[in-house]
């Protein structure tokens, strides 16, 4: 317990960002308590009201309370982003470890597929996949996931290759350790820190990509309060109601910034060498 406290005290920056990130997650959890209105409730007589007067951020084209929608927006963005980063992290590293450890034709096939995905601007394929599967948050997650896993696979593979022939791994093999045991006990721990750092620095960027897809109409569908979608709805009312496109954008900026800072500081905590 005492040791744990030290980590947080020693890395004050990290602790602060971690608390901020928790704050954002709590916002999502307690969205119904924080929101002042029902985010889906449309009162047309209240449409396009400027901020103030009972509506902190004003209202949108259907008279929905923008503040409540921005708050509820965390519920659309965070789970999707975490699910996406989490799954490409797991799947990508598992594939990479297997490819690196077993080698041979399996490695060749996996890595050629990964090359194929990397040799290609990710957003184009994600766009095509999201569009063709049909617009929904789930499909946007699948689309971005499909083009992002190779990064983790390649990284895990190269890390495994580095330690594959180390004496302790050979020793484990000679003493009859099961392959599964070697993979989990020896390969995973050496691969994990780098990949965790990568995953945590990827959260912000992933969130931006998902919001971008929603903005184009290939992600969340109305009436879901999603920030990218809200921005695209606000676009047409820019002239008369600029607040519709200001607050959701601000929300994305803040959340992405907090997670980017958290990722950067996590790197400093886990990998002190990299610190400049």
């Amino acid at each position, binding site marked *: 317990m005492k040791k744990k406290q030290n980590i947080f005290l020693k890395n004050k920056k990290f602790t602060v960002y971690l608390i901020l990130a928790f704050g954002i997650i709590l916002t999502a959890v307690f969205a119904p308590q924080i929101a002042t209105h029902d985010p889906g409730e449309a009162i047309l007589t209240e449409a396009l009201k400027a901020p103030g007067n009972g509506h902190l951020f004003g209202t949108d084209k259907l008279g929905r309370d923008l503040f409540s929608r921005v708050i509820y927006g965390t519920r659309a963005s965070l789970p999707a982003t975490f699910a996406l980063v989490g799954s490409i992290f797991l799947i990508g590293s598992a594939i990479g470890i297997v490819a690196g450890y077993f080698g041979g034709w399996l490695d060749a096939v996996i890595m050629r597929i990964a090359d194929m995905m990397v*040799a*290609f*601007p990710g*957003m184009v394929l994600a766009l*095509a996949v999201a*569009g063709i599967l049909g617009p929904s948050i789930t499909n946007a997650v699948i689309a971005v996931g499909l083009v992002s896993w190779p990064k983790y696979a390649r990284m895990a593979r190269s890390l495994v290759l580095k330690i594959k022939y180390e004496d302790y791994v050979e020793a484990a093999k000679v003493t009859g350790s099961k392959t599964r045991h070697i993979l989990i006990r020896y390969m995973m721990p050496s691969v994990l820190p780098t990949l965790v750092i990568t995953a945590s620095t990827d959260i912000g960027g992933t969130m931006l990509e998902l919001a*971008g897809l929603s903005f*184009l*109409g290939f992600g969340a569908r109305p009436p879901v309060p999603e920030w990218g979608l809200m921005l695209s709805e606000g676009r047409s009312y820019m002239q008369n109601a600029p607040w519709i496109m200001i607050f959701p954008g601000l929300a994305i900026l803040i959340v992405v910034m907090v997670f980017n800072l958290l990722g950067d500081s996590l790197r400093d905590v886990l990998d002190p060498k990299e610190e400049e």
Partner: protein
Amino acid sequence: MNTDKLWKRFLQILIILIGISFLSFLLIFLAPGDPVTSMYASTGMMPSEEVINETREELGLNRIFIEQYGTWLWNCLHGNFGNSFSMHKPVSELLLSRLMPTIQLAVLSLVIMLAISVPFGVLSAVYKERPVDYIVRGISFFGISMPNFWVGLLLLYIVALKLRLVPTVSKEAGFQQMILPALTLAFAMAAKYTRQVRTAVLEELNQDYVTGARARGISESVILWRHVFPNALLPLVTMLGLSLGSLLGGTAVVEVIFGYQGIGNLAVTAITALDYPLIQGFVLWIALIYMVINLIVDISYEFLDPRIRRKMR
């Protein structure tokens, strides 16, 4: 690069291209929407079952997958990417007409980006851990976290709507229409590149030859601009190539915001209309261009870095 390596590379590109063509074809083959229905829907007709079946036969959509793929690939190799369902024009003609505006936009944004990130990156590295450095790093961090479509909207709002300096939406693709989208694209990239330039310059500043040059009494500015700068720039070339490639496909969001008639905008229209031949053509074209750019970058590396040139021989 010797011929052997060049051939290997060429073969690799070919394999990847075939893979990507297969992938994009498979994707569309499995897609839930029906292309024939969406094709007719775009003309506003509601055809009978019979007509739909006839069209399917005509387009070869009733044949087995591998046969369809083979025919499609064969046609592609002859430069025939089919006709767009929704715009009733050859795909290659459509893509070609939109490619130039996007290339212009991409290049302009790269130029703007370099004009921002190189001076600030160098400044930040030279004055490491001083106020200038902190300010530059702070702003670039801000830039990385900013959604580019939001930057676009804000620019549109401030420059076009409030200050009325440029028209909001325009059909032509002149310089005036390019400046805002280019600025938007440059903004996010500049943030990334400023950090990169900073790291690269810092790395070079720690090299022995810098100490040596200082010992010989060469002035700091000569060291920086004549020795450090060219070396630090080298890794940027790769990044620039990659950026140009991803810009060609990644300008979609910005093009849509500003109503810019580029290839990304076309792609979004195609995807929304489920215009399969156009989507396939787009994916394939971008992949090809991207890989050609990467190849050029690899080769140009050799010209820029004498060390690699010597190793190759």
